[in-house]
């Protein structure tokens, strides 16, 4: 493997096996260029967090190699940790300390000179909008505030690479959008961001490139546009005027493609095998069946369609518990 750039990530054949379970990560190859936002998308239990834990040196891989910021994750763990910041799945904060005290602790532990610690703390707390709450105990923070503090702590020592493990899970729309803006801003400053998520729109909105993982393997990789273009099938959704006609609508749409899971109440939807050009035929078929339609919509392919095409399942509702989760807990991985 060539020496990766000092702000890039490379993995080859990365595997993590747990004692009594299937492989949580089953041979992952990936390459993240410096300054890129890489979205790692998959359902619960796909192996996202396990991958992050390996790349951040908190879990040794069973097989395979990886270099983060140019350092080998197994042999040069200390150097990797010096170059990365991570906000893991749990906010991992101490409810008895204030935001400012967290920053002081984090900057000190990373070896920032005393003179710089206060300044850096103030700067980061302001950046994430926590200046006013800085002297309140974290136990009083909302979920969004905790996530923002988590991000600030991950940035304390000016890392070149940032790992974010499901950073917006459980947040309201406003907090989520604010965090997205922050991540986009970081990427503009040249920070490489490795982001795991189970939210399609997050990967779509933020990521330069997306890797879709399922059952420990990457099943698709590329820019969101490339991946969707590969599938190329739009979805048509029809909602009848009389909700009792739903079954008839579904019947009428059936010849045009596979049923799509995402519909409004009382509607039916299919992925059009023949693409947008079939729309006229769809309208004719609905008309021939004597159906009065309230709404007819054409949706461009989504990452969920990509996932479905690659795995045969929809991303939404596809999750399970992460394999080997008990073993993970046994070695101190929450």
């Amino acid at each position, binding site marked *: 493997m060539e020496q990766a750039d000092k702000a890039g990530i490379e993995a080859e054949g990365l595997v993590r096996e747990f004692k009594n379970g299937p492989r949580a990560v089953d041979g992952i190859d990936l390459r993240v260029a410096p300054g890129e936002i890489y979205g790692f998308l998959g359902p619960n239990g796909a192996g996202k967090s396990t991958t992050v834990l390996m790349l951040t040196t908190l879990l040794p891989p069973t097989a395979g190699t990886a270099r983060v910021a140019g350092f080998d994750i197994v042999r040069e763990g200390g150097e990797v940790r010096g170059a990365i910041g991570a906000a893991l799945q749990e906010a991992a904060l*101490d409810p008895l300390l204030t935001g400012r005290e967290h920053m002081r602790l984090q900057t000190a532990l990373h070896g920032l000179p005393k003179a710089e610690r206060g300044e850096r703390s103030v700067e980061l707390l302001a950046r994430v909008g926590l200046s006013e709450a800085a002297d309140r105990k974290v136990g009083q923070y909302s979920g969004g505030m905790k996530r923002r503090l988590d991000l600030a702590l991950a940035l304390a020592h000016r890392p070149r690479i940032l790992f974010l493990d499901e950073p917006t899970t459980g947040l309201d729309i406003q907090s989520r959008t604010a965090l997205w803006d922050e991540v986009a801003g970081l990427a503009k400053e040249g920070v490489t961001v490795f982001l795991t998520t189970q939210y399609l729109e997050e990967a779509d909105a933020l990521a330069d490139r997306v890797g879709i993982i399922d059952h420990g393997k990457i099943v698709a990789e590329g820019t969101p546009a490339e991946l969707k273009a590969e599938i190329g099938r739009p979805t048509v959704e029809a909602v009848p005027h009389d909700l009792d006609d739903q079954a008839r609508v579904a019947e009428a749409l059936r010849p045009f493609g596979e049923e799509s899971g995402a519909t409004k109440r009382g509607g039916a939807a299919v992925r059009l095998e023949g693409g947008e050009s079939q729309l006229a035929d769809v309208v004719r078929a609905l008309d021939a069946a004597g159906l009065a339609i309230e709404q007819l919509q054409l949706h461009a392919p989504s990452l969920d369609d990509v996932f479905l095409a690659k795995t045969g399942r929809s991303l939404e509702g596809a999750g399970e518990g992460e394999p080997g989760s008990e073993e993970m807990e046994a070695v101190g991985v929450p």
Partner: protein
Amino acid sequence: MSAHTTQVGQLARRSVLRTLRQPGQIVPALIFPLFLLAVNSGGLKDATNLPGFPTSSYLTFALAVPFMQGALFSVMNAGTDLARDIETGFLNRLALTPLRGAALLGGLLAGAIVLGLVQAATYLLVGLLAGAELAAGVGGALVIVVLSVSITVAFGTLGLFVALRSGTAEAVQGMFPLFFVLLFLSSMALPLELLQTDWFHTVASINPVSYLLQAFRSLLIEGWNLGELALGFAIAAAIGAIGMTAATAALKTRLVRT
């Protein structure tokens, strides 16, 4: 100041802050042992009439016990704090810094030291005000505090070990009965020589807690008995060494980072 010292210092600072910000940890650790001291010294006064009882003041005899009970609270508090760090993922946050394992353990015990100091000073002051004797005088008071802190820290390492091994606060709390038993099956209420029931006497005689109690009592009742004092410190050191070794090994497994 070296990076290592800074790490220990910062973690120690956090440990102390957390302890002071949890009155629920401090108050029972102070009040409970004193309450039992009051009850037992009132209820077992007649024990001083037994032939061979070393003092005419049961309060003086019983004053050794709160120091051991305080050590018990230290096991729970230090262990629970660390277990919570593991459960919340805070330990992972610390693992991502250049932090060394020994620094983590050392820093965590700082809170135990502070609590130990507060406990020792409180028990001694209240006991003396209530009329307990201190044969070894002012010097003895200082040695009592040092001994108490040593024992608190030693037992604290056991709490850290349980936390690292189990990873849950519940498991640490579950240890309470075990240490409680250790305290009761000792010369807690009566001197070894006056324990009539054979099996109880045997168990109490091999229980290190009996000798820790005796170290305190030597200062309170006799004055300066260097042999008993040395034995008490040696036992505290041994428990601390075992606990620290076990905790360090458990930490290596818990912080599996590369």
